[in-house]
């Protein structure tokens, strides 16, 4: 057993020191009928590194690797290039095998990194402060709604139709138990309804917050200023959700447009796809709300010799101190993913993030132009960053599957995202990042063209 250092001889010596005859004597508190006598028989015994590796490789071979095919999927998780040094740094044992920095004198590495992360996130989202991370964007979004209830002492949250449907689902799950009232609506493909006007109209005195995604689930980017003003007028908070933080290199931040709380999914930067997790939730807000924030916060201080150092702070908000009065039940967050995010952000810097964002936008525009040149394919999205929605002449679910059968991962059908809404079935959400090559766009467009014209490519 390669991970267990004790020898039988040592086990014997230790039992003698303890003063018992056998290991069973240490399990005396377990009722006899619940004690297993030998290894669980339905499960196999231990395996060598080679055997485990063989098994994993066989399973992995049954998946289509995003990086090996033309790839256009987004909808809340984006495939970006992660520099080699990011993965190297997060595998350093001093980061990888450290715990939450409860003992600051021997955790300055993690703490300084978190302080830098908080600064990067706050600047990127345009907020005064940011926390040391949440589980992911969807749980950050719910925590923001919950925080708005605590601040405004009101219970009605208005979620714009552009919020990721899975984020809306998470909020609905929680609201069912907390008694929050969620005002939700679905996006449309026809562009005839003025969604912003409807959103503005629904804000009233009962409203605790308005939740807007930016860019939204269809890829639209809309100015948040009017919503911010209206929310302010009714003493409601504006919560902005950013699922593609690379966009912040190209467009104004939500904070700049008046958002009170900005949450996000940080996966895009440094973390990778990983089939949905672990990811890293971003959480920033105006400084005046800091004591209502969920999650860990790292703050600057000095040590007894006057040297700058960092500690976890404002922990009187948290579960280990406040128990049932805590702002959230969160304990473990997403430390190592926050490190990956922060290292990648450090490598990019101001210039890199802006350049990267423009490459994304440029490629997305190229792809949009090529795909909308196909007969019967129409653009739904107005202004966009690196993701947009097309209306196909037929149900997009079948098209996505046909493309996948040809080893092309061609976006996410709105039918999968909104199974209970027939009007959205023909929608296809397409993301284009710097990892997409011109020939990928050609392969995708040609295949789509052939499928739609009824042919077989």
């Amino acid at each position, binding site marked *: 057993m390669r991970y267990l250092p004790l020898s039988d001889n040592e086990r014997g010596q230790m039992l003698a020191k303890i003063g018992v005859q056998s290991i069973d004597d240490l399990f005396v508190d377990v009722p006899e009928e619940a004690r*297993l006598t030998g290894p669980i028989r339905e499960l196999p015994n231990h395996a060598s590194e080679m055997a485990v590796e063989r098994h994993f490789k066989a399973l992995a071979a049954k998946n289509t690797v995003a990086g090996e095919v033309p790839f256009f999927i987004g909808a809340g998780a984006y495939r970006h290039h992660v520099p080699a040094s990011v993965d190297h740094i997060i595998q350093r*044992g001093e980061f990888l095998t450290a715990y939450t920095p409860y003992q600051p004198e021997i955790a300055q590495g993690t703490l300084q990194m978190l302080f830098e992360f908080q600064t990067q996130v706050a600047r990127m989202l345009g907020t005064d402060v940011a926390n040391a991370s949440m589980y992911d964007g969807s749980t950050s979004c719910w925590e923001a709604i919950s925080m708005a209830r605590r601040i405004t002492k009101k219970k009605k949250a208005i979620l714009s139709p552009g919020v990721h449907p899975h984020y809306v689902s998470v909020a609905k799950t929680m609201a069912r138990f907390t*008694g929050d009232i969620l005002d939700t609506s679905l996006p449309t493909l026809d562009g005839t309804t003025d969604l912003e006007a409807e959103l503005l109209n629904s804000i009233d005195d009962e409203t605790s917050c308005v939740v807007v995604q930016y860019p939204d689930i269809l890829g639209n980017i809309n100015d948040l200023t009017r919503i911010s003003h209206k929310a302010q007028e009714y003493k409601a908070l504006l919560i902005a959700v950013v699922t593609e933080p690379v966009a912040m290199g190209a467009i104004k931040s939500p904070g700049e447009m008046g958002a009170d709380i900005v949450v996000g999914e940080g996966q895009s930067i440094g973390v990778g796809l990983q089939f949905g997790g672990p990811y890293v939730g971003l959480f920033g807000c105006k400084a005046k709300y800091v004591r209502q924030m969920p999650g860990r916060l790292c703050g600057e201080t000095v040590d007894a010799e006057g040297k700058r150092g960092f500690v976890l702070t*404002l922990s009187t908000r948290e579960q280990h101190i406040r128990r049932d009065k805590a702002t959230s039940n969160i304990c473990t967050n997403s430390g190592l993913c926050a490190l990956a995010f922060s290292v990648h952000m450090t490598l990019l810097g101001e210039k890199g993030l802006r350049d990267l964002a423009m490459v994304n936008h440029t490629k997305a525009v190229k792809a949009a132009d090529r795909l909308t040149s196909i007969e019967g394919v129409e653009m739904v999205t107005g202004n966009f960053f690196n993701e947009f929605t097309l209306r196909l002449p037929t149900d997009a679910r079948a098209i996505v599957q046909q493309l996948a059968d040809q080893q092309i991962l061609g976006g996410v059908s709105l039918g999968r995202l909104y199974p209970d809404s027939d009007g959205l079935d023909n929608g296809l959400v397409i993301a284009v990042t710097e990892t997409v090559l011109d020939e990928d766009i050609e392969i995708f467009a040609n295949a789509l063209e052939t499928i739609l014209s009824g042919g077989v490519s």
Partner: protein
Amino acid sequence: MNQRDLNQGRPSRIEGDIDTTNGRKLSTFSGNKALMLDEPLIFELGSRETCGVDIDVMEPIESRLGGLERHQPIGLAGLSESETVRHYTRLSRQNYAIDLGLFPLGSCTMKHNPRLNEKMARIAGFADIHPMQPISTVQGALELIDELAHWLKTLTGMPAVAMSPKAGAHGELCGILAIRAALEARGDAREVILVPESAHGTNPATAAFAGYRVEEIPATEGGRVDVEALAARLGPDVAGVMITNPNTCGLFEPDMRKISDLVHAAGGLVYCDGANFNAIVGRVRPGDLGIDAMHINLHKTFSTPHGGGGPGSGPVVLSEALAPYAPLPYVTKSSDFFQLVEEEQSLSEDSDTFGRMTAFHGQMGMFTRALSYIMSHGADGLKQVSEDAVLNANYILRSMDDVLDAPFGHSGPCMHEALFSDKGLADGFSTINISKGLIDEGYHPMTMYFPLVVHGAMLVEPTETESKHALDNFIGSFRHVVNQAKEGDQSLLQAPHFAPRARLDETAAARRPILVWNEPETAQAAE
């Protein structure tokens, strides 16, 4: 004789960086001390022009950003790759970690993180797949989730498992929401969750987050749940209990089966906090004790790295009574095809699910690591894991209880962690001084002041991946520091003396929080 000889080669403890031969304080121009290197913030090192990534230059196009183009600078600092690697490497050296030594943080299970697990998680077929890929293109990933689920169900003796919760506290929430959904489904609204006073803070926080009122159940003098007090409080308003087993005092709850039966008889349901499953894995199945839900911290029992505070992963095993309410999405298998049940499939299957807890399918990167760990150990190895974890903890308990008060040590063995109190230390000395003394000895301290039921609690969890040699060294240091605290050794009050930082001013940090870096001119202007 010089200082070095007096100390037999060990560093001096009291003098720090004072050269005692002439009383002159030794310092360096840089402020560094050889390999102890300070490091500025990236914002102080980098610039807005520097970039550590080469990015393609594109032909300019007509923007479709609709007038929302960014004009203001973001305010980020960039470093070249060489500077970046150096920055983080220097920072890393200011951290304690399992890779450096024994990490006896009770209840946190800081065991060795096998590197095979890291390698498995990085196979492109798992690391580079998107959660929204068509189901036919991720069959291997779903099979892996199903396989891990099978292990977790079999090891716990439970019929179902919800895989999506993102960490332990998220798993608690999953279990409590399932309990609430099950009770509501039978038209039985109940308002109270009972939690023992020794519980981890996430338990009451979770129950409150889910809309329940929390009431505490006292502990007995033996450190167990007071079953009589619990039975007396049960009634039609009690939705359930949250019991940690083994509990936070490091003790098994011998009456767990009885507690489950009492709660069930009163119409409630039983949540078991599985944070300490490491003590019994492979030897005891919680399902045999009558529980309805239990989360498993994959980052504790199954050794996915703690990463300086996450990511964790908290799958929740469920009883027949709760299984129908499990969250979306989940994996099912029909013939040879693995299906991911999301909103679409649950609509057509008329499911009772309480809904979705997170955007995607859970912590896949942790599932791969945990399965790699579990397969490596197998049924025989996992049994050995719990046995060695318990053996190591009892070895520490019996190697310390002559110098340090072990409040429950007289009643019998502990499980995977040994609990001590600060009774008998000199006036003015407390648990924190022992913690900081251990830092100077080269160890991460144990969990301190938790559980709350013991005065000045010190909760020591060595885990099964420590050798006898490592334990003996730790015990030597621990005894030494305890004796210092009993003798009133004043140097201990200022410890740590040899860490990258001396004691940090946490009060000042909370009074005037500085949570982000500001350019010096802005910082000054704000004052």
